[in-house]
């Protein structure tokens, strides 16, 4: 059930954290977690730290914590997401996160980077490859997170990594790691 929510809403803005309250250690929750094929975070609270912090005397418990780390809702005991009431609450909680997190307007630098990229593309298409690439490098420096600019540069500089057989993604990760 949680896995379904994570898949539907998962991404940049939401996170499901499951806490296994098992004093005996990781071996008890592990089969459950593996069987359910979960992709969200699963933590182990063998010492009952969270229950103690919350003053909870029973589980299952649910906590909704917002983007600023503020506790917005808690249900101590009988928090069962298979029940429509809690499931609806979780969906609303995540649904709001998605609507409030519209993509930011590009910053001035990011906008300038895109302009330079477009100018570079024009030059490149006119056969002025070196001039175009100089602009792309400038653009890439302005907005280092713009993967499209990165890739375009790499593809021209290192065609063998892109066009000879399968694209070499390991090589791309290396480039990113080394800040190129």
């Amino acid at each position, binding site marked *: 059930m949680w896995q379904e929510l994570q898949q539907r809403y998962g991404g940049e803005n939401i996170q499901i954290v499951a806490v296994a309250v098992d004093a005996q250690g990781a071996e008890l929750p592990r089969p459950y977690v593996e069987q359910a094929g979960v992709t969200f975070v699963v933590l182990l609270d063998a010492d009952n730290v969270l229950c103690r912090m*919350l003053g*909870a005397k029973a589980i299952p418990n649910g906590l*909704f*914590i917002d983007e*600023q780390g503020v*506790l917005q809702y808690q249900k101590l005991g009988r928090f069962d997401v298979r029940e429509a009431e809690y499931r609806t609450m979780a969906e609303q909680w995540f649904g709001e996160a998605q609507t409030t997190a519209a993509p930011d307007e590009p910053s001035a630098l990011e906008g300038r980077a895109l302009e330079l990229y477009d100018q570079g593309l024009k030059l490149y298409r006119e056969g002025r490859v070196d001039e175009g690439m100089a602009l792309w490098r400038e653009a890439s420096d302005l907005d280092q997170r713009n993967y499209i600019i990165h890739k375009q540069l790499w593809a021209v500089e290192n065609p063998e990594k892109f066009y000879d057989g399968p694209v070499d993604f390991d090589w791309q990760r290396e480039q990113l790691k080394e800040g190129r």
Partner: protein
Amino acid sequence: MSTTTGVAIGGSFPEVTLPTLDGEAVSLSQFRGKRLVVFMWGSW
């Protein structure tokens, strides 16, 4: 040991660090900037 009175709704959630099932330490504050649902359950 201090007695626990719980965490107030509308208050900052205290820092807590717990291990994953594979022993890697994770703090809830690592998820700052995201909406969290924490659910606690036991396999017993």
